């Protein structure tokens, strides 16, 4: 397989995953605010902190009002991580490799792209925020279903998995971090109804609420949510799950490419470190030692793995 194709596959998958997370985050925040009205004058500001987009937002908008943040998150092409921008970027990558994609997958990506060009700010008024994001989430599920149903499980699929899982591990970690730091300004709320509501929202934005309840029952506690979203082996949007899939895909690629270089997941490499953290760690210990520091480390390691993969397999010029 061409390195350029591998690069396009990686980024196509990565942008689709990113778009999906953006949609989830915006959706959940919206519902959180509907259910628990707040006195905070800028209840949408934390969302910008989660994604690290505060500065960029301030360049184009005055205050983080709901309308503006939704616009920035969803439609704003000057925001390279808006849903439309991610969809455009995914489609641009897909276009360069569509001869390698199943026609069903290409058709789905292309129609999503064509529809996204028609989105206007009025779309939230016309369809309703809930219906809009619900439809969008279904389309991302459909994309994932079509990929799984139509793409051969070969190296090309592995490169898509790399993009998806790396982005996923990073996003889970970022979301947890934000809840820990930004959604909870007052100490007296810890463990209270608002706190639980917010943690439930975090779970819901990862489509994890039902799965969490199957494991831990009805009670929502910080340590358990952290345990579930970081360390659960079976849940498809946990960091641990993402890293397991990432490693399996990388090892298949290494096997095919017969490269003599040290493996991406060698013990002292970023991959090896991340795998160790997520397989051997547990929520109690991590919270005791500082969750924020742990999450930062996870994000840094994800970035490092990304550059190792780029150097080894994607760099072609």
């Amino acid at each position, binding site marked *: 397989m*061409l*390195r*350029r194709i591998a690069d396009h596959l990686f980024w196509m998958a990565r942008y689709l995953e990113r778009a999906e997370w953006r949609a989830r985050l915006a959706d959940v925040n919206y519902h959180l605010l509907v259910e628990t009205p707040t006195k905070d004058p800028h209840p949408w500001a934390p969302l910008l902190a989660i994604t690290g987009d505060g500065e960029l937002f301030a360049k184009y908008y005055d205050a983080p009002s709901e309308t503006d943040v939704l616009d920035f998150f969803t439609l704003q092409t000057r925001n390279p991580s808006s849903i439309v921008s991610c969809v455009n970027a995914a489609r641009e990558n897909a276009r360069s490799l*569509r001869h390698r994609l199943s026609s069903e997958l*290409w058709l789905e990506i292309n129609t999503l792209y064509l529809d996204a060009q028609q989105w206007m700010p009025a779309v939230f008024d016309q369809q309703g925020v809930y219906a809009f994001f619900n439809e969008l989430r279904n389309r991302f599920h459909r994309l994932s279903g079509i990929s799984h149903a139509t793409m051969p499980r070969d*190296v090309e699929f592995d490169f898509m998995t790399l993009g998806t899982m790396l982005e996923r591990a990073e996003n889970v970690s970022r979301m947890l971090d934000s809840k820990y730091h930004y959604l909870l300004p007052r100490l007296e709320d810890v463990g209270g109804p608002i706190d639980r509501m917010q943690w439930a929202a975090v779970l819901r934005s990862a489509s994890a609420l039902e799965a969490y309840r199957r494991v831990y029952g009805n009670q929502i506690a910080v340590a358990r949510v952290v345990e579930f979203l970081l360390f659960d082996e079976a849940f498809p949007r946990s960091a641990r799950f993402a890293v397991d899939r990432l490693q399996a895909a990388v090892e298949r*690629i290494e096997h*095919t490419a017969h490269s003599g270089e040290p493996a991406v997941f060698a013990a002292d490499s970023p991959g090896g470190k991340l795998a160790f953290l997520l397989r051997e760690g547990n929520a109690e210990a991590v919270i005791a030692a500082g969750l924020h520091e742990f999450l930062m480390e996870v994000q840094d390691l994800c970035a490092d793995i990304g550059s190792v993969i780029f150097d080894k397999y994607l760099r072609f*010029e």
Partner: protein
Amino acid sequence: MRIGRRLLLRFFSFLFLTFLRSLVVLIKAHSLRTATRRQLTRERGAEIVAIQTAVTEVAASKLSSLTPFWAAYKAHADAFDEMFNRQGAPRAGYSRVLAEFLATHADRFDEIRARADRMFLNEGVTFNVYGDSAGAERIFPFDPIPRVIDAGTWANLEAGLIQRVRALNAFVADVYGEGCILKDEVVPADLIKTSPQFRRAAAGIKPPHGAHITVAGIDLVRGADGEFRVLEDNVRTPSGVSYVIKNRLVMTRLVPELMREVGVRSVEHYPADLLASLCELAPSGVSRPVVALLTPGVYNSAFFEHVFLSQQMGIELVEGRDLVCMDHKLYMKTVGGLRQVDVLYRRIDDDFLDPVVFRPDSLLGVPGLTSVLRAGNAAIANGIGTGVADDKAVYAYTPAMIRYYLGEDAILPIVQTYLMRDPDMRAMVLRDIDQFVLKPTGESGGYGVVIGPKASDRELAETRERIQRDPAGFVAQPVVQISTHPTICGHRADGAVEVAPRHIDFRPFVLLGERPRVLPGGLTRVALREGSLIVNSSQGGGSKDTWVMAA
């Protein structure tokens, strides 16, 4: 292409049945039941004749009265109408199509067209227009009324096309080899040496079995007399074949019952034929050649076609930056390291192919590719410098070329062409410049063509000046009254779909491998603007499915 063969087999086995079935449909519709039952009991040969006659008669006499749609159709006053003769009866090949489809489905044309456009857009069957903002993609509008070519006409066309492309290929080999045709002064040597398409670097490259031209697209038009004439040769990187296949796909998807009823020859084996022709170019000793398609990238106007063909052939689609030349060998950069490439189907122009030899600023090509070709370690299609053969001035010499190399008269006539480098011809043309079509020799895609009778005085004055400044850069041709075809053209005031004559041309595709292969079909382009003669996709043209009838 297993499916293609199966379909073909099915088609043959259903051939006779199809005749019968179409007959039965007609009988029901037109109360010829008893008469034809008697015919059915006759001998097979006589029967087919009888059926054909019945179909023609029914179609000719009843159609206009049957459907107001066709009754409203007014053929062009001067041009050859592809579907109806002067008496208003359908021409050979059309009667069955008319009876089976065009009469009964007229009310669905609008829907078919809308669905086809939607399908093309969603599937990304698009082209980019140069000059538009980057990434502006357009669909090639599709007209649902098919163009039909009967089996007899096609047989003649096919023979003429093979003859022509063989001669053009021999010419390229000669020009970059011995140069016999120039020494014998059949074609003036200075015409070649000053041609903007002449590539000195091509001298000394010897492709396997002498195939410089692997893929040719020959543009044909039908004049007022109904005879097919060659308008232009395209032997560099002709495009459009993906639309031939996609248009057919649309028709079979939208009117599936129809394709079973009418005996149309399949076009879907083209990618397999192309791959076979490309594999035949592989350096000797390579048993399973690695073939790749070289594209300039996503912003190229024909990018969809590059994607489509590489996908259909199951080969890599590469850009220049995916390739590297080392030790006179060509490689692509894969995840597992370098992999040698044996045959490159390049869809980029000579100028951009190899910055070492051609334009040094090109980022699209592969430095060192020419030396790989010269060493014989890889082959490309089409070869370097084939453009000398489709130069619009060289075109005037093609009948002589065919006689020279093949000892035959040209089966397909060309359009009378005056070279502006010739002072007498130039004087004659400039005297009545508004009576001619003026074409720059180096351009393709309809760019720079001036149609005398339709041009403004200012355009004509400018053209005159350009010709005088650069006589060798132009040729002139009489205006060909190119044929028209019934085409959907919007709606009448009462909301009904309107059908009107529009000018069309035809680009069949010829593959020259170890043996020639002609795609039974081709791209019919239609000038959607009333009166327009320019059919190019970049200039407001659309396309039709082209049905070459099996019998």
